[in-house]
């Protein structure tokens, strides 16, 4: 089903590249009053367990926020593939993600997922789309998320002026872990998350978008990082910044650093020293 969304989006993208649509004001499609995608999904224990096995989370009664993210991803794709959406979704890059969990969702619970475009703002390299999601159970807000995507080289008239904070230069520290990702890792994550973006699943498609080969889902790397932190608190905030993609198969050097209430997990290319993903969990 999501593949269909991708295909539709791809078709729309082609059109948008030819003729970027700009007729609709940004306020109509982003911000507090923008349209919402609301859906309800049951956290099926089996589905959640299968997801957990793939991302190395322990299988237990609580649902990891990374699974919640996957439930919001489809609706966000639908929003960004809408004909009046100003930029092409295919080719967009996931650059950052923030989740705040207030209390965990339990398996078997019915989760109401609300997704909207929070903002469309300028970026030094193009335009940044911020997608917001809320996850509620019985009217209680369990978690909220902001997913940041970058549409490279695209300018959207009316986009909010925004200056991203400068990234601190990355100096590779001593690794405390190592991950090995294979193409099958991407297959498995695609299966359990539903994210079947061809850049993860097909070498030719990946090359068509300028990658050296298939790349792992950014959110998979992020999910592994969160799993490595082993958060035991109910409430926490999780910030992820994506830098460069991991081409498959690939070895990833990782360092987990616990410092007070914040634990950072950084992942980088052990040979080049370039970061793949930097993240923190704060309880």
């Amino acid at each position, binding site marked *: 089903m999501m593949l269909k969304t991708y295909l539709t989006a791809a078709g729309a993208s082609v059109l948008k590249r030819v003729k970027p649509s700009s007729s609709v004001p940004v306020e109509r499609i982003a911000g507090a009053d923008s349209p919402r995608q609301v859906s309800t999904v049951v956290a099926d224990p089996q589905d959640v367990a299968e997801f957990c*096995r793939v991302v190395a989370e322990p299988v237990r009664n609580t649902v990891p926020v990374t699974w919640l993210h996957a439930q919001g991803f489809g609706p966000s794709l639908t929003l960004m593939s809408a004909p009046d959406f100003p930029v092409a979704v295919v080719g967009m890059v996931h650059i950052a993600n923030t989740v705040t969990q207030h209390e965990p969702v339990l398996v078997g619970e019915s989760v109401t997922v609300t997704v909207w475009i929070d903002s469309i703002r300028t970026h030094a390299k193009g335009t940044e789309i911020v997608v917001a999601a809320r996850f509620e159970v019985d009217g209680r807000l369990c978690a909220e998320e902001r997913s940041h995507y970058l549409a490279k080289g695209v300018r959207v008239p009316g986009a909010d002026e925004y200056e991203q904070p400068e990234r601190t230069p990355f100096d590779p520290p*001593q*690794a*405390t872990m*190592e991950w*090995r990702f294979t*193409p099958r890792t991407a297959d*498995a994550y695609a299966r359990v998350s539903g994210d079947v973006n061809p850049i993860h699943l097909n070498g030719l498609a990946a090359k068509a978008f300028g990658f050296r080969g298939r790349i792992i889902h950014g959110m998979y790397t992020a999910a592994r990082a969160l799993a490595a932190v082993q958060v035991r608190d109910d409430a926490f905030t999780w910030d992820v910044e994506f830098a460069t993609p991991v081409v498959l198969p690939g070895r990833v050097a990782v360092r*987990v650093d*616990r410092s007070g209430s914040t634990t950072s997990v950084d992942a980088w290319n052990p040979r080049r020293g370039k970061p793949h993903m930097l993240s923190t969990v704060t309880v």
Partner: protein
Amino acid sequence: MTQTPHPAQSTPGPVRRAAILSGNRIPFARAHKEYARASNQDMLTSALDGLVARFGLAGERLGEVAGGAVLKHSRDLNLTREAVLGSALSPQTPAFDLGQACATGLEASVTIAQKIRLGQIDVGVGAGVDSASDAPIAVSEELRGALLELNRAKTVPQRLKALSRLRPADLAPALPSNGEARTGLSMGEHQAITTAAWGIGREEQDALALASHQKLAAAWDRGFFNDLVTPFLGVQRDTNLRPDSTLESLAGLKPAFGRGLSATPTMTAGNSTPLTDGASTVLLSSEEWAAAHGMEPLAYLVDAEAAAVDFVTGEEGLLMAPAYAVPRLLARNGLTFADFDVFEIHEAFASTVLTHLAAWESEEFCRERLGLDAPLGAIDRDRLNPNGSSLAAGHPFAATGGRIVASVAKHLKETGQKRALVSICAAGGQGLTAIIEA
């Protein structure tokens, strides 16, 4: 992370002494060589049979046999019991498996000793075995998942769906790695980090390795192992032993670990233990049982202390746990290093031993990490691993504890010395230490 030692709170009960009567092992062999076709069960059975013969215990029912392996086949759920059944012991001898990674062998002896001390059993065997050659090979996670799904499927479409996930690459088997489950880093890479952090040099590592080979060779030559080892499959000595090693030959080896670190890599195949196959056993009993069977104890297993560290976050080195266990063990028993004649520190890597020694000498480490007012102090190298250790003998993970316990007990008896400290680091950031007294 401060792990403050604290004295025992419980009042001593009517415990007995647990005597170490002796041990038996098969010579350790480098992986994929002489024992390549022997299973853990084969090796453990042979080691048990040698022990049984040494004490004329054929047909005897012992209290219990504890044992384990680190690399274990799923079919070996009852490995030790199966080995007992295949041995000359009475089939009425119960057995159980346990595991604490490389500390498995020592934990087996400690557990048997505690049962003896409490009067639960009168005699038992602590054992351990590992084959890096006959290692379990698993199917890939993908294939395993699909097969399990297939097994659960009830309808044809469900079955087809289960199989449809498979790709040819999924059929490739998964070999066991010595990578830590939570970090994916090999033990050598973990130790390389610790080695660099403590600034342990290449030369002192090579010197320790050389001493290990020389001491083990000397022990073999003077017949020290005549009543501790029984040959197996034509192997009569530990095959990793290189009596002709020199500092020059060791210095010529290329670094094997830590090549990605900013510090100069120092750990080589020469100052690290190789993958090894082997099995060991230790016979322990109450003093009454020993006397009734006309056996004179070599020594007594007095106390043990385990520790663990948080290595996942990089807060402490993977193999540093013994550095924390030892001060707690000393405090509980009211002892200092000066009270020990022998220190048996398992040589997972030369640098592991050297970092432990450095840690105990470091005022900062002892104050900040151990919560001590003063450093534990230096260990006289002459008292360290007097008959060689794992760098020379090799290290079949779960078999190392039994090798050390039996050897050091005999060493105490032979030299008339009083007390030995045994320390074994283990995967998972663990360490197990014990006191053995004559």
